Every structure is written in structure tokens, then in C-alpha cells.
């Protein structure tokens, strides 16, 4: 063949010319198409990432809807309008909650719409074509269900209507989401094709589902979009969105699977923030089946839909104004009323579906014809037909269509991959945010544009009295701090020393750090971080306060910058690293705060350790496991050489503090190389050695490093980080446990030149007495590490 082609090419100049010209042109077209496709994919990917990321953030940080706190809130300042509006909302909510409490099943009759009488069934192709051409179907409003048969010229070109000489009664189905039809009633062919792809993907799942059903008669299953289901169930709802998101469709299928497994095949989701559209959503799904068909439908009730439901439940008058107000902009810690609404909805909807379900089941009829299987459902004056075709019986002339399908399938797999990837990134972001908030030892508050608290952590709630969410943050500040806060606010980020109103009205000194941020999708949020400085003022002379506040604040500054980086799409590949850095900073912040508190305690009272026999190896491994993250973030090695039975008598908590301090120190001062921890037993002592490859301590400073507030004059490294507390506390703790802590320089030799001795690192050595009593297995071990 090739040979023949080559000889033709040689003999005929025309063919040669055609190849010479045609081939580059074809190549050019193909490459242009590829570039275009890549560009489109990139755009789509960005869109996906943005959606997913924002969705997961709001899901994580948005907590819930804010109705109750809204009701109990009081303003201290604000315009007259605002006060009136608040009073109105509060009254409406109280009315609504009373009404909700009184709401009882069964459902209101309005929900159960009249079902049209069953229509005749179709038994052959001719009847099908008649049906397609019938004026009632042709005039069916498109909003009736995803198809308006007979009105669109391109419809008959779809393979499922023409193909297949048939036969093989392979179980199959077609999935027709309502979104394939636009509101103007035009067929959106490309969308339709895409939806077919989705149906292919969903096919296997549905077959599995049917197999699991153990009902051999069931040959078909339908996967129906929410909008269709609402219509089939005869629930006339206006104004629901008709957007179609691939991400949503994943979620849908998950719901369907779970619905099928659920008791009574009915399932209600918790309220969640919708990734694709935004807004609070409850999803209700039901799986209906008879011996021929299984139908799974889902209704997602979002804020727009709620309006009509509320109206029907006679709640509309009370809650309507709330909606028009701006329900969406409130976030909250409790959703008691939202819960009431959900339960009421389920009662009503559940009852409606139960009743409608029976009707729907009996009215769905199965007809087999050669080309396709058609189900009809009466609807108004016409019928709605569901087509099921056999995809393995496609004429070759439709091959190109299936090439498109295959390409789309591949892109779809790409989307699946992207989906996982973006999900992972979003998880990292989410994890880091909650971790930061949970681990911060300062009070953490997020306020909205009017300074109302939308979220606060446990530490803040412990600092102040009474409920916090929904109240104005300045309520919790001393008058002078309020003035300062209001003056500084226009700056964006700032910090100042102020006072917070604690329990019983006591004013406690705090350092307040504040910055604006986007939180829960709202750009105009502001965070406040309050670090308790009471201990500092009482125990430490004023001149040290500066050192303290700087050291405490600098990790916070870094955390704010990292959080800012997290918001960038381009940064997604770096999320893991940022997260590690953030963890490190949070850890550092905790150690600092710990040290300050411990230091305060040291001066106030004697250390009274709870000494008990312990295997140091366990404590050590625990501490090292936590420290690994920090080392990784700095690209340092953290090695451990723990050998032998290391039983000694210590206070575990104090020992942890000491080890944390030493390792933290090593991480702080070591820019490259490794941190090595040796632990071994020799003679009657246990030794723990923390060595690093940092700059070491110059000879003239070695005497002083264990002193209070000592800060080395080292350059380069993080010279200003830290308080000069860690080693001071560590030595006192070790002494309290009957041991000693000393410093030893690590001396190396210069590689080049004369081999003079140089400082090559630091070594901190803890010596603790070995515990002789107790364990019979105990035997002396030689160290293997020294």
C-alpha cells in the first residue's frame, strides 16, 4: 500500500503537489485547533479552580446561616434605619419561629398537584414518529421537560432516534438534563452532546446500581436532573436556576447512590453551601422503582427556591423580607431556624413524594420498539417521552459523532483529574485555615463591615463575657481602645496595645493585631487577633515589653502574608509548601506563647514537677514527629538516633517543653544541614543530645546563653526572632527534674587552607539520672550513637 502510494507520488506531479501543499495546511489547521483547545481548557480549568476553591472555603469558613444570632443581636450604634430594620427582622424571626413550631404534617395540599390522566402507550416506531410529530408534543412548553420534540430540525439527526436495526436489548438509558435546553426554547446541540458524554460515564454506575437491586426485570434506569424531577413530581416551582455544572453532576450521582442505599430510598442532605451556584442548599432525593424502571430524582432547594416553599408553608410573609434583605451575607455559628425550615420541608416534601411517587410509578410505561425504548409520561395535554437507545448499534455514518464523543470523554477524564487536583488544593487551603484558627493561642475574631462579629475562636470567647457572634466587636473593648480602633481602621492593617472587656467587666490588657481579609467569600471582612498581655505587664519590666510584643507579633505578620498567598490561583502548586511554612509559624507562635506563660509561672511560683518513671524514647519520638514538619519546611534534615532502654524519672510535660525549645532553637538558627538528636544511656545517666549545623555560639557568648532575655548577636539567621526565654526555662526545668543542661560547641576543621578549627554547630546536652527501680526487663545498654 505504502509502496503503491510512493510510486504514485513519484509518477504524478499533481499528487505530489497536492501532498506538498495539503499536508502543511492540514498540519497548520490541526495545530491551530490544538492551541485553541488548549487555551479553552486552560480557561475552563481556571474557572473550575476558582469555583472549587471558593466553594470549599465558604463551606469551611462560612459555617452556617445566621438567623438566631440575628434575632438576639443588639446594636449600640448605627443609623435609625438600621435599628428599625433590625427590629423588623427580629420580629419577623420570632413570628417565623413560632409558626415553624406550630407547623405540623401532613403537608399543605398545594404541594400535591393534580396529576394528568395516563395516556396511551406506544408500541412501534410508527407510533413513535406520530407521537413526535403530534401537535400536543410539539407545543409542549420547553420548560416542561428537557425536550421539545418535533419542533427542532436538528433533532432527528441525533443517532439515538435513527440508529440501530436493533435487537440486542441491552440495558441502557439516556440522561437528559433540563439544562440542555435554554430558556428561549432553542436546542443547545453542543450541550446536548456533552450531556450524552456524561450519560455514558454515568451508565456503568447505573448498571451497577441496577445489578445491586437484584431485580432482573429492571432493564432501565434514569438519571434525571433536579429540574426534571421537580417537574415530573408535579411541583411547579418558578425561577430555579438552569445551570449545569460537571462538578454538580458528580455530587448528584453520589447523592443518587446514597439515596438508593438509604432507608425508604429517601434522603435529605444537611444544608450546605453550593459549590457551583453559591447559596445555602438542602437536597432531597428519592429513588422510585417498579419492576421496569428505576428513577432517581433530586431536588436541591436553594435560596431562590426557598422563597416559593416558604410561601407555601405560610412562612413567606415572615421570612420573605429577610430574604430580600440579604440573608446570604450573614454567616453564623448556629442554624437553629434553618434546621426548623429543613425539617418542615422534609415533612412536606417527603409526604408529597410519597404520594406522588405511587402515581409516577404507575404512570411511567415502558414500550419497546426497534430503534429505541421509549417511556412516556403524561404531562398536561401532551406526553413526555424518555428515549433509551442501544449505543452499540450505531451506523458508521455516525462515526464522526462518536469521535467527538470519545474526544469529549477524554476531556472529561481530564476534568476528573483536575477535579481531584483542585479538590486536594482546596483541602490544603481549608485545612490550613482551620488549623491556624484552632491553634492560635490568641483570640481570633472576624468582623464584617459594621464591625459585627461573624466568627470567633474559643480563645476569644473565653476572654470575654457572653455570646460573641453577631455582636459588635467594640462592645468588647475598653472605651479608649474603641477610639483607637476607629482611628486606625482606615489604615487597613495595624496593631495597638489596648484593653479588652473580660468577665465581670474587668479590662484586660491585650495586643491587638488587625488586618482586612476576604473571608467566606466576602471581601470586606476584618480580622482581629488579641494577644493577652496581662501576664507580660505584671511580671516583666516595661523595657522587655517591646521585645515580647515584637516576637509575638512577627509570626502573626507572616501568617497573614501566607494567608494572602493562599488566595492566589497561581499559587496552587505551592500550597503544600505554604502550608508547611504556615504550620511552622503557628508552631513557633505557640512555643513563644507557651514560653511567656511558663516564664510568668516560673517567677510566680516554684516549679513542682510531677516526677514519674518514663521511657524517654517515647517522649522524644513524639516531639520529633511534630518537629519534622518544621524541618521539612526549612529543607533541613532532622535525624534521630535513639538507642537502648531510656528509663528515667521526669515530668513528661516539662521534658517536652525542654525538647521543644531545644529543637525549635536548632531549627531557628540552622540555615542548612541537619539537626541530629541522640539519646542513649551510659553508666547511671541518660543523655539526650540535640546537635545542629548552625553557626554555633561564639566563645564570648557561651556563658550567657542560658540567661534571661539573652539574644545572640548572630547575623544572618533569624537574629531577632525569639525572646531569650527558651534556654532559660529549659535549664531551670531540667534542674528541677534533677538533671543538667549544658552547651558544647561543635568544632570542625576548615577544608581548605591550613585546617584551622572552626565553629561548625551547637550541641545541647541534657543529662538525667537513670531510673533503676521498677522494670525487670531493664538492662543496661551501650550507646551505639556516640
Amino acid at each position, binding site marked *: 500500500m505504502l509502496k503503491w502510494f510512493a510510486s504514485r507520488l513519484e509518477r504524478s506531479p499533481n499528487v505530489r503537489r497536492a501532498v506538498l501543499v495539503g499536508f502543511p495546511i492540514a498540519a497548520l489547521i490541526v495545530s491551530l485547533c490544538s492551541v485553541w483547545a488548549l487555551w479553552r481548557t486552560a480557561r475552563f480549568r481556571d474557572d473550575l479552580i476558582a469555583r472549587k476553591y471558593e466553594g470549599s472555603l465558604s463551606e469551611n469558613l462560612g459555617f452556617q446561616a445566621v438567623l438566631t444570632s440575628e434575632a438576639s443581636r443588639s446594636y449600640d450604634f448605627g443609623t435609625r434605619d438600621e435599628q428599625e430594620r433590625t427590629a423588623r427582622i427580629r420580629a419577623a424571626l420570632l413570628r417565623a419561629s413560632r409558626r415553624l413550631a406550630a407547623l405540623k404534617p401532613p403537608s399543605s395540599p398545594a404541594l400535591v398537584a393534580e396529576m394528568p390522566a395516563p395516556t396511551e402507550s406506544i408500541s412501534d416506531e410508527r407510533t413513535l414518529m406520530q407521537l413526535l410529530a403530534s401537535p400536543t408534543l410539539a407545543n409542549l412548553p420547553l420548560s416542561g421537560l428537557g425536550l421539545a420534540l418535533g419542533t427542532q430540525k436538528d433533532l432527528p439527526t441525533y443517532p439515538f432516534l435513527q440508529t440501530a436495526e436493533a435487537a440486542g436489548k441491552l440495558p441502557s438509558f439516556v440522561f437528559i438534563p433540563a439544562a440542555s435546553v435554554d430558556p428561549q426554547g432553542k436546542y443547545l446541540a453542543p450541550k446536548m452532546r456533552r450531556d450524552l458524554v456524561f450519560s455514558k460515564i454515568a451508565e456503568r454506575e447505573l448498571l451497577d446500581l441496577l445489578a445491586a437491586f437484584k431485580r432482573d426485570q429492571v432493564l432501565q434506569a434514569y438519571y434525571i436532573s433536579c429540574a426534571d424531577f421537580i417537574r415530573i413530581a408535579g411541583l411547579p416551582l418558578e425561577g430555579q436556576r438552569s445551570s449545569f455544572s460537571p462538578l454538580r453532576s458528580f455530587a448528584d450521582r453520589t447523592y443518587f447512590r446514597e439515596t438508593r442505599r438509604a432507608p425508604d430510598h429517601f434522603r435529605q442532605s444537611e444544608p450546605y453551601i453550593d459549590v457551583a451556584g453559591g447559596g445555602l442548599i438542602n437536597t432531597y432525593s428519592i429513588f422510585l422503582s417498579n419492576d421496569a424502571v428505576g428513577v432517581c430524582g433530586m431536588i436541591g432547594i436553594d435560596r431562590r427556591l426557598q422563597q416559593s416553599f416558604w410561601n407555601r408553608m405560610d412562612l413567606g410573609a415572615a421570612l420573605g423580607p429577610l430574604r430580600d434583605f440579604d440573608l446570604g451575607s450573614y454567616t453564623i455559628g448556629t442554624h437553629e431556624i434553618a434546621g426548623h425550615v429543613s425539617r418542615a420541608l422534609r415533612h412536606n416534601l417527603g409526604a408529597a413524594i410519597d404520594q406522588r411517587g405511587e402515581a409516577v410509578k404507575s404512570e411511567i410505561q415502558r414500550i419497546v420498539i426497534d430503534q429505541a425504548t421509549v417511556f412516556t409520561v403524561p404531562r398536561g395535554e401532551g406526553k413526555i417521552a424518555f428515549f433509551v437507545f442501544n449505543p452499540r448499534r450505531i451506523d458508521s455514518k455516525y462515526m464522526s459523532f462518536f469521535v467527538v464523543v470519545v474526544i469529549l470523554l477524554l476531556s472529561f477524564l481530564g476534568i476528573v483529574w483536575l477535579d481531584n487536583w483542585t479538590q486536594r488544593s482546596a483541602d490544603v487551603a481549608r485545612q490550613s485555615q482551620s488549623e491556624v484558627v484552632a491553634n492560635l493561642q490568641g483570640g481570633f475574631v472576624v468582623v464584617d463591615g459594621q464591625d459585627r462579629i461573624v466568627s470567633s475562636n474559643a480563645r476569644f470567647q473565653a476572654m470575654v463575657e457572653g455570646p460573641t457572634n453577631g455582636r459588635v466587636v467594640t462592645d468588647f473593648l475598653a472605651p479608649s481602645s474603641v477610639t483607637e480602633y476607629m482611628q486606625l481602621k482606615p*489604615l*487597613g492593617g495595624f496593631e495597638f496595645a489596648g484593653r479588652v472587656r473580660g468577665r465581670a467587666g474587668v479590662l484586660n490588657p491585650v495586643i491587638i493585631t488587625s*488586618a*482586612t481579609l476576604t473571608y467566606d467569600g466576602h471581601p470586606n471582612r476584618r480580622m482581629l487577633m488579641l494577644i493577652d498581655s496581662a501576664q507580660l505587664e505584671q511580671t516583666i519590666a516595661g523595657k522587655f515589653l517591646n521585645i515580647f510584643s*515584637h516576637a509575638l*507579633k512577627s509570626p502573626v505578620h507572616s501568617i497573614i*502574608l501566607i494567608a494572602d*498567598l493562599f488566595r492566589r490561583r497561581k499559587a496552587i502548586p505551592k500550597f503544600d509548601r505554604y502550608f508547611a511554612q504556615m504550620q511552622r*509559624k503557628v508552631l513557633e507562635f505557640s512555643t513563644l506563647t507557651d514560653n511567656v506563660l511558663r516564664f510568668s509561672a516560673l517567677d510566680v511560683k516554684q516549679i513542682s514537677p510531677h516526677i514519674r518513671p518514663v521511657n524517654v524514647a517515647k517522649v522524644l519520638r513524639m516531639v520529633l514527629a511534630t518537629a519534622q514538619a518544621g524541618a521539612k519546611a526549612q529543607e533541613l534534615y532532622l535525624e534521630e538516633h535513639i538507642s537502648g532502654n531510656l528509663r528515667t524519672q521526669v515530668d513528661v510535660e516539662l521534658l517536652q517543653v525542654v525538647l521543644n525549645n531545644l529543637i525549635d532553637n536548632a531549627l531557628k538558627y540552622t540555615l542548612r544541614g541537619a539537626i541530629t538528636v541522640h539519646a542513649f544511656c551510659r553508666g547511671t545517666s541518660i543523655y539526650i543530645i540535640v546537635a545542629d549545623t548552625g553557626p554555633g555560639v561564639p566563645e564570648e557568648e557561651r556563658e550567657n546563653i542560658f540567661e534571661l532575655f539573652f539574644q545572640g548577636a548572630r547575623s544572618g539567621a533569624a537574629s531577632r526572632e525569639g525572646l531569650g526565654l527558651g534556654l532559660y526555662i529549659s535549664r531551670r526545668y531540667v534542674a528541677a527534674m534533677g538533671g543538667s543542661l549544658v552547651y558544647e560547641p561543635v568544632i570542625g576543621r576548615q577544608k581548605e587552607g591550613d585546617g584551622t578549627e572552626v565553629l561548625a554547630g551547637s550541641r545541647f546536652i541534657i543529662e538525667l539520672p537513670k531510673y533503676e527501680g521498677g522494670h525487670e526487663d531493664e538492662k543496661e545498654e551501650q550507646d551505639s550513637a556516640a
Partner: protein
Amino acid sequence: MKRKSRILLLDDDVFHRGLLAEGLEDYYDFEVRKVDSLAAAKEKIGEFQPDLLLLDVVAGDDRLEVIEWVKQLRAAPRPVITPVLFVTAYYKDMKERVSGLENTAILPKPFKFEEVTQEIRKLLGRGR
């Protein structure tokens, strides 16, 4: 191609310095040279020829030295008029001290990238 604006960044906190430089380079298209001390800044300024100095002013006496240095630059026989953006956690304290200096701005810490880049662009725009 347009040359990237160069920023000489002085910050003594190794971590904060790294983050800030990374953010400015990766997401805002500046060229950043990092220095960890005033001495290093003095040394690098001639070689690097920055379009802007981004100086983190810390606690203690150092901050006075940093401001003093900027004053010297401005008052030199051939004055260096490179715009200067001070960032500081001691905003109230510092604002007075730098208010007399030309072509400078001060931004309180903590800040976000939008805020710092907005100030930088303002200063760069003014200088041209």
C-alpha cells in the same frame, strides 16, 4: 520588553523577608533583592540600583539608624531620591519621624500584598 521595577528589601526576619520577596516576584512581577541588615543595604544599593527601597523598620535603636540613613541619602551632595516605603509594626511611633522626608511613604504591619504593591506603585509613579 519593559524592565522590571527593582526593589531593595530590608527586613531582618528571614521568614517574612522570604515571603514578601517571593510574593512580589512571583505575583507582582518585581525584581527583588533581599538584605538582612542596614549595612548590607548600604552595600547593595550602589550595585543593584533599585527603583525603590522597601525598608522594614524594627524596634529599638536600629529604626533611627534606618531613618537617619534615608535622610543622609536625601541630603547627600548628589541626592539619592529613590522612593522609600517604610513598613513597620510601630506605625504611630514612626509616622512622625518620617513625615518630613520626601518621596517616602509608610505602611503599618501587618499588610497584604495588595496594600504594599499599591503603595509601591504610587511611589514609583510619582518618581517618573
